[in-house]
């Protein structure tokens, strides 16, 4: 499958944290083609294993990209059928006003998040952001009609189709971090054409957006020698400082900081340079907000790397990424993995 096709399928399928199961039927078959073993663990993480060649010491590399996305949840149904809701994960309430939504009830219900007509607004109202608790979703049914369709606790996602912009740019909801899952897929395809010693675990993790939970349990289960989180980084836009951001189309961000194993990071940079893969640096002195944070402190501690795909407008429903950046992320990962051997691993991890 083409990476863009997969990404479209991933983004057009809803997988709000804790409710990710719908992605199994998309991710499992495409990874199965290249794996020796694929399982879903107790929390819902999808773990695909690609065995290494001549892997005498049984060395293991774990890749993690989270497949969950931020969203909303039904809290209350008003007398007239309007739905009150809360958020799951970090949502800027300003980005959900006037959106179309899908309420994942007994069946998927279309709805819209209403807004007050500008004609009726007081002068000072217009400059204030509307709070989530003051918003309602209109699904066009009365409370009685909804009794058998929706229950408190159902998840709700913003309705947005995957679309192509100019050049290699695409826009969709939840490219954070389905772009990362797509990068893992591209990496496994790449590795199937290369020889590698380590066993590689490709983990599509759950519940990253609410506290990197899937990464904790999957890393514990796999107990890898090296963990690599593939997530998204802030794409450069005019209102953001240059030091906080990654440029679009200029390759993945390689994270530097306390969350990252310095020896491995140096090796990763060398591989990028050797293979002429564009990359940028991303600075994160403390724990990153990625699965890498969980992996690093699992069991007795695991050497960790983070790669960030540049992404604009993070946590809105119009996130933008450059497909080329995803492909370069995958390529860098694949070549990096081929350079890790039973012979050199100990040296690389040595301080």
């Amino acid at each position: 499958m083409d990476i863009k096709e997969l990404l479209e399928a991933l983004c057009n399928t809803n997988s709000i944290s804790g409710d990710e199961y719908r992605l199994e039927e998309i991710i499992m078959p495409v990874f199965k083609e290249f794996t020796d073993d694929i399982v879903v663990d107790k929390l819902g993480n999808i773990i695909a294993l690609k065995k290494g060649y001549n892997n005498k010491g049984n060395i293991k590399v774990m890749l993690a990209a989270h497949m969950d996305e931020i969203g909303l949840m039904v809290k209350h149904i008003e007398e007239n059928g309007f739905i009150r809701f809360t958020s799951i994960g970090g949502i800027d309430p300003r980005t959900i006003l006037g959106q179309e939504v899908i309420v994942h009830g007994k069946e998927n219900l279309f709805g819209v998040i209403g807004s007050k007509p500008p004609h009726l607004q007081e002068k000072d109202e217009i400059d204030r952001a509307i709070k989530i608790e003051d918003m309602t979703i209109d699904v066009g049914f009365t409370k009685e009609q909804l009794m058998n369709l929706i229950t408190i606790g159902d998840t709700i996602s913003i309705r947005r189709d995957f679309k192509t912009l100019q050049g290699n740019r695409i826009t969709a909801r939840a490219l954070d971090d389905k772009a990362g899952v797509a990068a893992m897929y591209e990496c496994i395809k790449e590795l199937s054409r290369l020889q590698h010693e380590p066993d590689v675990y490709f983990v599509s993790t759950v519940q990253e957006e609410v506290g990197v939970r899937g990464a904790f349990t999957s890393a514990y289960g796999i107990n890898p020698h090296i963990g690599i989180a593939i997530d998204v980084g802030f794409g450069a836009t005019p209102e953001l400082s240059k030091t906080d951001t990654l440029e679009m189309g200029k390759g993945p961000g390689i994270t530097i900081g306390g969350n990252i194993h310095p020896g491995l990071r140096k090796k990763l940079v060398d591989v990028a340079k050797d293979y002429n893969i564009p990359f940028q640096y991303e600075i994160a002195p403390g724990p990153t907000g990625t699965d890498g944070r969980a992996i690093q402190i699992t069991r007795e501690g695991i050497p960790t790397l983070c790669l960030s795909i540049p992404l604009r407008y993070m946590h809105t429903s119009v996130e933008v990424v450059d497909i080329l950046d995803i492909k370069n992320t995958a390529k860098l990962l694949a070549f990096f993995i081929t350079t890790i051997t039973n012979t050199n691993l100990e040296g690389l991890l040595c301080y």
Partner: protein
Amino acid sequence: MLLKKLTEASGVSGNEKEVRNIILDEIQDFVDDIKVDRLGNIIAYKKGKDNPKKLMITAHMDEVGLMITDIDDMGLLKFTTVGGIDKRILVSKPVLIGDNKVLGVIGAKPIHLQKREEWQNALEIEQLYIDIGVNNKTEGEKLVSIGDYVIFNSQYVEFGDKLVKAKALDNRVGCSLLIELIKEIEDIGFYGVFTVMEEVGLVGAGPVAYTVEPDLSIILEGTLCYDIPKLDSHLIPTHLNKGPAISLMDRTTLFDMEFRKRITKIAEENHIPYQYRKSSMGGNDSGKIHTTKEGSVTATISVPCRNIHSPTSVMSKQDYENTYKLLKTILLEYEKGEL
């Protein structure tokens, strides 16, 4: 489907060409005279038996939207609003730019990098821009020009219990009603008029009234509906599913009481539900029509639309049907000379 075609067409005030062409195409075989005037208004006439009063039915065909004002060095597009848009509904939406409908998105700063007080305030238009995926100004200029009109990228969707979501229901719903009337009604003479630039100050309506010189006018609209829970009923301008809304007054017109009462009586006699539009805010083409030349009598009949002036406006098909029924009945009374 007519309403789908009309709402998905582009027609921001001052750029009504696409929607005008759809309307012309729909009605030209059903009218006896039709012209597009110097401002772009469509004035159509259907012949019928002589009537002492000249009746004009109007609907504005423009919609609110955006216009490109600049392309920056990164290839991001700055814009201004055309017509009354709540700046808060623009964030995180896809849009279509210019005649070629280039897709773009209006993004926002990631919540992770915001200070807490930032997301309590609305984003200003000046802080927003459209991203079409290009790398720089030169690439942007190949696809977009300053002055290009921008519409919301929002499809017509039927949902819930006979509801419709679309952009531009204000006022493609009025256009759709008028087109259907023109097509169906026979042997009743009236002017069917589709105006331009209502949303930027009732621009087309005055010249149209000047040309037609109506005695009676009915203005068809999609109007405010804000029937959220726990709002005092006197603060609710209209309700969904309670039938056509008859205007009492707005910022531009105090509607003729005799004509209004005649219309509500017709509704009652024919068991058609109706409601009053209980807000004095907003305004429509009537403001210009009733004060043109020596003045004339007007009424406004509207289909209630939730989330008006947003990409996700909502109306009820039941309200639409009842509005159409009322209009047809009014025309029959007019034919009898009893309006």
